[in-house]
């Protein structure tokens, strides 16, 4: 048993729903008790979809358990077929139905529906949402794009073609990423054969083999399917995820190398503003801002690179809840001299942030809760996300425009350059003091409680030093406290005086 306050991922059948809802012409019949229909609101409310997800729930109750829940399933599947007339159907069980072992796969087969029915095995007590999405997509791809013996081997034509794999319903900015990546590919002269699962039909999946290579935007969703396509159809995989200025260039270069296209004309895209925005003197104050990063593997790894290389932040923590991709995140963390935090326990992440006292948190909706409580600026970079992270405006994370978006959204929560100085100079101003937060963020109210000292510290602060510490603006106060305590420990001092504070400041000056 795992004590969970918030969970980063839903159960695997929610992952299957993300695939079904992304696609057209596919229906999902889910053996599930009353109440599991809550998952509909993820799509209709959080993502503001204007149609119900294509899911039929069998809705069994306690009184059905002694009776015939299997019959209930068969009726639901039959009715769903008649009412919705899908091209194909997926069937599976939610956590409770898994326990009663009705075998939706066998029951669906017995119905002999005149469409492909793909059974899903979604072990709810072992796996989670992203795994469920990945498995569902893989099973669909296997079913609709099988190896055909004797099929002619595709040869590279004058215009290379690729598939875009991975975007789903309820994905973090997937809708806009697809637009931006398609734009990049078009400017390179690469045609897009199929984009899946988002907006694809089962019949589109049958055309997957008719492309030269696959672009995997979200490995959490599409890596397994892409590997299978590589094995069966010999399609190469483009693995660079184009989040950030540099990764976008790497992405272009990777495709160029694969296709023989000359990338130079589009490498210096005029709309790529991040480099100049970051170099302009106003951005000097961004240097060394301490950022804590947590999310799914794709976005966390990308964010770490953008933060350190392209914005000049100091990444003080990096982690993911996606255990399946722990190795990649560990490697990215090591490059930054960090140990990755691999956990799906919200309480552990909360503890890490409280201890590290970053100036900026780049995380999920859960880290936003934490950052808000600790009075730290925060930008959301990864699912799970809240309704306001499904914006109306075009707001991709990928490509050159995506890099522009990252610059804006990550810098926004920070106190701006000159304001930082003014706050330090005139600390007693009744309107513009650090307790009021960054002046351009009316809603931002830092937590009334000061950031607590690390629990393991047995160093005491003199009254004067404590008072002096309070004079340091809130957004660096945590760091000053840490530095002073670390310095005192190293110097073997039991009490921190005013002088220790300034000694430490000079010691760690950067």
């Amino acid at each position, binding site marked *: *048993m*795992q*004590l*969970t*306050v*918030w*969970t980063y*991922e*839903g*159960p695997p*059948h*929610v992952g299957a729903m993300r695939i079904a809802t992304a696609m057209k012409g596919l229906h999902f019949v889910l053996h599930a*008790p*009353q*109440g*599991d*229909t*809550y*998952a*509909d*609101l*993820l799509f*209709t*409310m*959080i993502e*503001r*979809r*204007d*149609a*119900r997800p294509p899911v*039929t*729930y*069998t*809705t*069994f*109750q*306690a*009184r*059905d*358990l002694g009776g015939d829940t299997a019959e209930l399933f068969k009726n*639901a599947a039959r*009715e769903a077929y008649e*009412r919705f007339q899908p091209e194909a159907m997926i069937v599976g069980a*939610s*956590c*409770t139905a898994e*326990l*009663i072992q009705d075998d939706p796969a066998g029951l669906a087969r017995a119905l002999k529906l005149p469409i492909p029915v793909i059974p899903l095995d979604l*072990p*709810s*007590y*072992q796996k*989670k949402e992203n795994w469920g999405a990945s498995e569902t997509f893989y099973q669909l791809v296997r079913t609709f794009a099988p190896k055909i013996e004797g099929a002619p081997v595709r040869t590279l034509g004058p215009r290379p073609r690729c598939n875009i794999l991975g975007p789903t319903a309820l994905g973090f900015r997937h809708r806009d990423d697809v637009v931006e990546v398609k734009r990049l590919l078009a400017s390179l002269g690469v045609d897009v054969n199929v984009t899946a699962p988002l907006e694809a039909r089962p019949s589109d999946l049958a055309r997957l083999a008719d492309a030269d290579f696959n672009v995997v935007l979200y490995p959490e969703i599409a890596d397994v399917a892409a590997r299978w396509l590589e094995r069966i159809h010999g399609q190469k995989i483009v693995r660079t995820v184009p989040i950030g200025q540099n990764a976008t260039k790497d992405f272009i270069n990777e495709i160029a190398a694969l296709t023989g296209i000359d990338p130079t004309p589009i490498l210096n895209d005029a709309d790529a503003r991040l480099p100049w925005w970051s170099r302009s003197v106003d951005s000097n104050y961004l240097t060394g801002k301490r950022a804590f990063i947590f999310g799914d593997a794709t976005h966390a790894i990308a964010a770490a690179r953008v933060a350190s290389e392209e914005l000049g932040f100091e990444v003080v923590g990096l982690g993911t809840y996606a255990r399946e991709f722990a190795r990649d995140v560990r490697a990215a963390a090591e490059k930054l001299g960090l140990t990755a935090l691999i956990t799906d326990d919200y*309480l552990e992440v909360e503890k890490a942030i409280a201890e590290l006292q970053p100036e900026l948190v780049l995380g999920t*909706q859960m880290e936003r*809760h934490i950052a*808000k*409580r600790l009075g730290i600026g925060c930008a959301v970079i990864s699912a799970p996300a*809240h*309704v306001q992270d499904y914006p109306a405006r075009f707001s991709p994370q990928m490509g050159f425009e995506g890099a522009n978006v990252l610059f804006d959204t990550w810098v926004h929560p920070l106190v701006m350059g000159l304001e930082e100085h003014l706050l330090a100079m005139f600390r007693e101003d009744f309107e513009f003091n650090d307790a009021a937060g960054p002046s351009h963020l009316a809603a931002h109210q830092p937590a009334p409680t000061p950031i607590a000292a690390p629990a393991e510290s047995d160093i005491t602060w003199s009254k004067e030093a404590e008072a002096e510490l309070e004079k340091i603006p809130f957004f660096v106060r945590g760091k000053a406290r840490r530095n002073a305590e670390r310095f005192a420990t190293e110097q073997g001092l039991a009490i921190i005086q005013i002088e220790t504070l300034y000694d430490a400041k000079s010691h760690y000056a950067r």
Partner: protein
Amino acid sequence: MTPATPNTGCDSDAAPVLRERGQREVFCGLTGIVWLHRKIQDAFFLVVGSRTCAHLIQSAAGVMVFAEPRFATAIMEEKDLAGLADANEELDRVVDRLLERRPDIKLLFLVGSCPSEVIKLDLSRAAQRLSTKHQPNVRVLNYSGSGIETTFTQGEDACLAALVPEAPSAGEDALPSLLIVGALPDVVEDQFARLFAELGIGPVAFFPPRRSGQIPAVGPNTRMLIAQPFLGDTARALEARGAKRLPALFPFGAEGTTHWLKAAADAWDVPEMDFRRVVAPHRERAKRALARSKEVLDGRSIFFFPDSQLEPPLARFLAEELGMRPIEIGTPYLNRDLLSEEMKRIPEGAQLSEGQHVDKQLDRCRDARPDLVVCGLGLANPLEAEGMTTKWSIELVFSPVHGFDQAGDLAALFARPFARRSVLRV
């Protein structure tokens, strides 16, 4: 607790009830935790369930709740399914960790879920064991909020029923007292308390209390007014302790609130003149507050999808006081005992329906083209996209709607979707 046996056709004392089964677009009882954990301030709710349960609560609540929650889920994993002995050990470990983190907790509810019920994890024994272990600091109780047994608001019913045995006993010689049953917003409780004081009715206590140490005593001289129509099990548990229920309409709108207060006034032999003198100004204020919404709502048709069991009393309020025309009144479960007074006033021409087959009900709704559809969060946007005007039903359990001074607010909740339609030019 489980909704009544399938279809018996029609009702003897009222319009025929349409009973359906099929896919239900409703929450399970776990969702009640979202408001209960704010009501009882030193209680904590630990769901013993799956990742789905945790995901449900945070998604249902995630739309609204940002504060540090006083609820969590003990998520069962593969190894917990292997043996119940291990599951119990694991549960003890989780509870230890939780209580260590939140020493302010005085009352802990272990909340059963679909998976814990199916594997027959005995949470009442676990609660006893943990109560003994953590006494006197923490009391541990249990109830089921599982979807196989409870629909949405029935979770509150199960929770309060589990709290009833904790109430101290009031003996035969205790003074007559009034118990208000059902979780109400604090502001509404305070209003009712003032009204009862003005009427000379008392002592008055509220159940559940705001703190777990303040559970009111119950005995044969306890009279109770039920504030929510979904509290059938709680009412029965209190009756078993000797309490007598005062049948009444539910306190929605000026009429419902008057009727509800009158039931208590009669039990306390408050003279008719006194009752009118005290109630009239409040009642008039409520009616004035309704006037504006009535201009918008009068003559409009309304269709209720089942959600909270509040549907029959709300339909009565909307029909009698605002001139609306209910077409279908869907409820997950028709609680005939508690609705005895309401059933006499089901608006003419309205179809009562119990249970749900959501696709068939959507067909009926599209055929009827009602002016307003009351439905859950999963259906609202899709129906809006089809051109219908909708009202989220969840708001009806998440905002102060009881009593005289909320009557106008309650009506406004139904008027707002029309107002929005009329101001938008996009």
